[in-house]
């Protein structure tokens, strides 16, 4: 076996240089997500900025305190988003009322009670549910759920808070199921085994051991569900009727922050106060969803550390 030292050393020298160049590109791509998050904040802020000092935040026609949204006016425009803000949280609340019990029950059934075949089928069904795009949900809301609500729930308009809540709830179930499953599965096996050794049956294990142990994971799951629901756009745009008012009944049409932007951005002139107002709403949305997501992920990571340490 002969070795050619000079050739091999030249080759490995090239390798070393090559390696450095490649590592540079890879590192740049790795940092891309940081760049993009910062960029998103910066650009949304930038195109909202001219309006920000002029906005009345808490006054009579205040941003946070009034429902008078007349952003298109050239004179005397007001930017009250209270109705949209309430709308966002209201529809998210209705959605969670539907999604959390359904999602938790499904997660408990899949991970604790179901046999292997049933488990597979349910997981496929949940995956199909998760794959439906939000615009299709919006379509379903208008063409199918709306008429049902008019006929059986006494609604005057089919697109309302309840419709939005139903659709958003069904959309959120897969997320709740998968996160709840994860946190149930993360409970160490020896908790389960200890409970079984003490004579607990399956339900008692779930109720007395798993739920308390997975409590913070489940809380994080709900938070992430709310975060997603608040950020949802197309489905609520079509399902809630896009009416700028605070809903007082489930059958009232309403609007959300996301829907307002989607509905009005097409007409807003670039650089106009109207467009800046919409960017301001976008900024608010960004802050709210980031805060919720970061908190929820902190909880999840704190959990993982607790489990790793135990």
């Amino acid at each position, binding site marked *: 076996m002969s070795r050619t030292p000079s050739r*091999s050393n030249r080759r*490995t*020298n090239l390798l070393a240089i090559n390696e450095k160049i490649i590592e540079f590109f890879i590192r740049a791509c790795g940092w891309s997500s940081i760049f993009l998050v910062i960029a998103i904040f910066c650009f949304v802020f930038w195109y909202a900025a001219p309006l920000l000092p002029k906005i009345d935040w808490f006054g009579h026609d205040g941003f946070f305190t009034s429902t008078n949204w007349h952003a298109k006016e050239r004179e005397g425009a007001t930017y009250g988003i209270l109705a949209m803000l309430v709308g966002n949280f209201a529809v998210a609340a209705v959605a969670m009322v539907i999604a959390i019990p359904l999602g938790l029950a499904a997660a408990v059934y899949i991970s604790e009670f179901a046999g292997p075949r049933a488990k597979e089928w349910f997981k496929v069904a949940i995956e199909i549910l998760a794959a439906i795009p939000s615009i299709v949900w919006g379509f379903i809301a208008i063409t199918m759920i709306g008429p049902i609500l008019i006929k059986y729930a006494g609604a005057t308009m089919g697109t309302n808070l309840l419709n939005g809540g139903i659709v958003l709830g069904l959309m959120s179930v897969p997320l709740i199921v998968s996160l709840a499953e994860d946190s149930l599965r993360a409970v160490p096996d020896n908790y389960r085994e200890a409970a079984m050794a003490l004579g607990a049956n399956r339900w008692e294990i779930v109720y007395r051991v798993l739920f308390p142990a997975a409590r913070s994971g489940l809380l994080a799951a709900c938070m992430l569900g709310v975060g997603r629901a608040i950020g949802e756009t197309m489905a609520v745009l079509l399902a809630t009727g896009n009416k700028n008012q605070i809903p007082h009944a489930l059958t009232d049409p309403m609007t959300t922050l996301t829907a307002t932007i989607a509905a009005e951005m097409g007409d807003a002139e670039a650089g106009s106060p109207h467009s800046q107002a919409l960017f301001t709403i976008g900024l608010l949305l960004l802050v709210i969803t980031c805060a919720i997501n970061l908190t929820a992920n902190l909880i999840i990571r704190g959990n993982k550390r607790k489990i790793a340490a135990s």
Partner: protein
Amino acid sequence: MHPTHLEFRNLTVRYGPKKALDDISFSVPKHSVIGIVGPANSGKSTLLKTINRTLEFIDIARTEGEVLVDSVNVKEIDNVYSLRRRIGMVFPLPVGLPMSIYDNVAYAPRRMGIHDKKHLDELVETCLRDSVLWDEVKDRLDLLGTKLSGGQQQRLTLARALSLEPEILCLDEFSIAIDPVTTMKIEEVLMRLKERMTIILVTNLTQQARRMADAVAFINASELIEWGPTGQLFTAPKKEITGRYLNGDFG
């Protein structure tokens, strides 16, 4: 008397605040077998990692002192990959790469640019013969390396290490996860390989060191307690603790 191949000078390695090696100094002549013995967690594996600079893959590791191969400080070698190719490594846990046996042994030469089929065929056969694996696998060279038994995978690792004709062959407790028969086969191989390369044998099995090594270095709790010719260390150690360890009183 052979010239010095490998030398450690005041080598200290820290993982964060903890010292893994403390002021290690000794030298290894060419074509000899040195046994590095000591109880678990004494720093022996870390010592091997400093030779081929794979310690650099551990973020929190810091080194002081020098490691010299052929009187050259390994840290001053620009091309770390050429250094690593001169040093063969065998680990405690056998590793078969997820490719055919042939590709396993041909891996390193191919990265070097050797693609000529005849050359590779010869290379693979020589290395597999050298590591006493050829007869068992010669008809199934396309079998996945991960499907071999532990003892076979360890010999495959040895074959991979030999594929670049290393000057220094390091073995880190190579026998702990394999059967005694394979261990014996590999020990015979090592005694033959001694003529072509310098062998660093890290082991916790003192009798293995006694069988195979020309010199022995005893490392305990990150310190080099004592080193010298095998016979001298086993029969008349200078430190009492050396005698107790080699006797099997602890570790």
